């Protein structure tokens, strides 16, 4: 088995005296699609941000793509970050930029003015694949909600040497049909990739079960379950059972 893409051990994160993550242990195998499930306030988004190196851990060890985040210097950290694509829960688009610059920013590692022809081609190809090819020069703030979401997903796939894609609630508040389509888009791109790892969190349990290799349940700041979708549905732990209870019923 290759080195895991993400290895958290004993991670704690506090915010304003409140403990968000508590002794959180998680290994995400490389090349797989991982689902993260947890109820509101369980620390899901914080966990994803720790994985994405957006938030440092207060205690514990965070190893991302083979590097211990605490031990590595600014340059190494920058190179790790340039291999991570992150879709934030509220999208976090640069709304004063146009569509292509949002993607170029991620492709070039923060230097859209220095983008080369190859970078541009990559960005255009990505935007075409999510159906935004005709809107390259529209400002991100002027797109409709659905298009903004697709732009955020394109940006998460953008980094040149991307090894890790993180999606935080990519389908929140969407109708069921649109949700399935967006999750399908993510899954197909991840599957077609070259051994990249994907992490997806969502409340849409059955869609998640359909596309993930492994699911992990977070509860009160720790991972309490990791396993295949089939194991998750069969699990008798109360919290897990409540989250996965009767997934068929949650279908319309």
């Amino acid at each position, binding site marked *: 088995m290759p080195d895991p893409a993400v290895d958290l051990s004993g991670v704690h*994160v506090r*915010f304003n005296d409140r403990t968000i993550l508590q002794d959180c242990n998680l290994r995400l195998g490389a090349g797989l699609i991982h689902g993260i499930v947890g109820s509101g306030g369980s620390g899901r988004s914080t966990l994803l941000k720790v994985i994405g190196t*957006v938030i440092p851990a207060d205690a514990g060890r965070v190893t991302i793509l083979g590097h211990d985040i605490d031990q590595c210097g600014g340059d190494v950290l920058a190179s790790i970050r340039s291999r991570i694509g*992150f879709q*934030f829960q509220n999208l976090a688009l640069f709304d004063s930029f146009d569509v292509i610059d949002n993607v170029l920013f991620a492709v070039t590692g923060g230097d859209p003015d220095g983008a080369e022809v190859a970078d541009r081609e990559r960005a255009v190809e990505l935007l075409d694949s999510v159906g935004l090819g005709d809107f390259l020069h529209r400002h991100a703030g002027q797109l409709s909600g659905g298009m903004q979401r697709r732009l955020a997903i394109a940006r998460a796939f953008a980094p040149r040497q991307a090894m890790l894609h993180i999606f935080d609630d990519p389908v929140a508040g969407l109708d069921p049909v649109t949700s399935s389509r967006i999750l399908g888009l993510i899954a197909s791109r991840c599957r077609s990739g070259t051994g990249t790892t994907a992490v997806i969190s969502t409340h849409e349990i059955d869609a998640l079960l359909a596309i993930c290799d492994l699911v992990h349940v977070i509860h009160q700041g720790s991972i309490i379950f990791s396993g295949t979708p089939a194991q998750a549905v069969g699990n008798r732990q109360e919290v897990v059972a409540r989250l996965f209870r009767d997934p068929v019923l949650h279908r319309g």
Partner: protein
Amino acid sequence: MNRRVNEIGLLIQAIVAMTRRPPPLRRIVREVFSCGNRSIVFVCVTMAFFGMILVYEGCMQALALIPDLSSAGPATIRSTIRVFGPLMAGLMVSFRVGAGIAAEAGTMVVTEQDGALLVSGSSPAEWLVAPRLVACIIAVPALTVVGCLAGILAGGALGVGWFGIHPSDFFSLSMVDRGDAAVCAAKSLLNGMAIPVFAAAAGLNTRGGSEGVGVAATSAVVRSCVAVAVIEFLVSTVARVAGA
């Protein structure tokens, strides 16, 4: 993001980022224009009003004591250059630009764009602070000079037109020396350095969603105003000790 940013740390980060990858000239020019454009009319208008108030009040008081207004102009010019110009221009730029920088930084924080900057390989210090730091160090002294001119001209117009002071008496630099210019330059340069850093730090420390952005903008204005007042005090003290 969860970690508090402090002003000194942010200043250092911005300088480090600048040495690693200097902000493109285009962005600096754009920020100078945006800072100048946003503030120039506002600074001129408020300084003009303030100059008129100074001259009106000064002349009325002087007339009550001694019917001689010959020193009204030079005294106004000196105090405008040394004290009121840098102070008022600094406060007005804090109002006009400080809140704006904090609002932009705060909006980026609540919409998690600061995190998006990080994972894209840039940073708030590099993207937000560095170009504005350079821009304000250029723009604030320039605005201070223009503001002083506006105040002196408006005050002079009132002194000449209303109180009948001869223009050559009013617009006389007899009381101004090199030390005054140095004090003005020092105050405005330091203001230009402090305002963007204090404002951006307030913005990057935004907490608690959209309601946090307004609070951050407020604290940016207050903190950068206090910074301006402290700079005023420090430079005046140093100048006094150095005899300038």
